């Protein structure tokens, strides 16, 4: 069951406001964010509607929408918001709460986006830096889409656009440790 309260905050709105450092109540629904957002046409609910849903305490609907996962954090919306709401931070707050509480939209697109981020972070945990080729290969394997972008491979590899290896860090161990500690800190703040 999903609950509206979050970390001692009585309402979803309060929790989002605190986490994002913005006041969603300021939103007067002008829709400038929607017309500015380059991916609003991919979203279940464009930013304006997410803002209204937060005000209406529709926590589950917000968390189960793909919108926060599609947000590119390009900040075009917040740059034009007449109420100066940090919309990407609001999107991020909703997404982080969904991750913590294990609520995720079930669509294949969102699963892929999530998987990509997990694999990327896994590369950093292992090498301290991104291993691009391996990241792409693992993404194809883990999404069971082996031939994705294969048509690019001959050109990209031959031209050296994507190198075969990675120059990993000397203190890659320190990064592994940082991951453990960061996870601990996230657990504590729950």
């Amino acid at each position, binding site marked *: 069951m999903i609950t509206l309260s979050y970390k001692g905050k009585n309402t979803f709105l309060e929790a989002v406001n605190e986490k994002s450092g913005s006041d969603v109540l300021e939103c007067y629904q002008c829709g400038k964010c929607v017309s500015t957002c*380059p*991916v609003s046409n*991919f979203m279940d609910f464009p930013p304006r509607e997410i803002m209204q849903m937060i005000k209406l305490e529709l926590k589950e609907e917000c968390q189960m929408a793909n919108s926060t996962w599609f947000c*590119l*954090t*390009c*900040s*075009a919306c*917040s*740059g034009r918001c007449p109420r100066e709401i*940090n919309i*990407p931070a609001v999107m*991020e707050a909703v*997404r*982080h709460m969904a*991750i913590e509480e294990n609520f995720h939209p079930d669509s294949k*697109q969102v699963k*892929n*986006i999530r*998987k*990509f*981020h*997990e694999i*990327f*972070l896994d590369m*950093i945990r292992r090498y*301290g*830096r*991104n291993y*691009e080729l391996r*990241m*792409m290969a693992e*993404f194809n394997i883990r999404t069971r889409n082996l031939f*994705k*972008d294969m048509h*690019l491979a001959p*050109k*990209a590899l031959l*031209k*050296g*656009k*994507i*190198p075969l290896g*990675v*120059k990993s*860090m*000397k*203190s890659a161990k*320190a*990064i592994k*440790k*940082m*991951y453990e*500690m*960061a*996870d*601990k*800190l*996230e657990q504590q*703040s729950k």
Partner: protein
Amino acid sequence: MKKVTYFPGCSAHGTSEEFDQTVKMVMKTLDVEMEEIPDWNCCGATSAHTMNESLAYALPLRNLVLAEKLSNDTMTVPCASCYQRMKFTKIHMDENPELARKINTAVVGEGQYQGRVAVKSMLQYCYEDVGIEAIKTKVTSPISGMKIACYYGCLLTRPKAITQFDSPEYPMSMDRIVEALGAKAMPFDFKTECCGASFSISDTDVVLQLSGKILEMAKESGAHAIVVACPLCQSNLDMRQPDIEKKFKVRYDLPIFYLTQLMAMAFGYPKDKMMFSKHIVPVDGALAHIGEVIEEPKKTAKGKKAVKAESEVE
């Protein structure tokens, strides 16, 4: 001689090796000595801040702390995404020393963070610290004749509160540098639209649509090429261009240069040093325009007025 701390970022060893190489060449000509952060780590990019807040602060913070151990007071970052994460972390840590201490002691453990080092993108460093005049004096073989659309992407000038540089809507710093090199910077309305960034892999369709619009607008501006200062913008616009052309049944044939590649050309470095062979869209067509005379359209009374209005805005 100026000295600056250098954070190359992961893609400098991968998809944007040519950016890294040409940055080094250009800085040498501009009499700037670059000192790389020893054993730097990935900034965490989009993935860290999407998934894990503590990690999103910790990864850049380690680099910021390491940068403070060097004597320079400025750090420069070529990749727009690395730059954004570093500057974002710096501003949040400076504003909230309590949080900085917490993340630093609980996660990073590399020593105290003081907030001493300024973080600037490569573009910002060239524009503010080196300056247009200094760049002009180093130009030995101008790239006049080339028409260029300057594409900044989302992260170099936005959000204003983080970057504190140029305009978030219609930046001009790169245009001014390109003009200092002798080329013509075209009016281009999609300067700060997003290319789709990390969706390149997770949801390629988004990138094909977003980057497609950017290419379309650049072509419409009359440009021979696009110039960028971000590895992800470059690979989305360059590597995905054949797919975009196929999907929308169009032909753009627009090479995507890094700003520093063009600077190095104008500074007289030989062509084979630019690593143009790594580009997917061939560059020769665009480079062939060098030396051509661009005929300015005759200014009508109305045109003059418009030009005046623009300079007044500045």
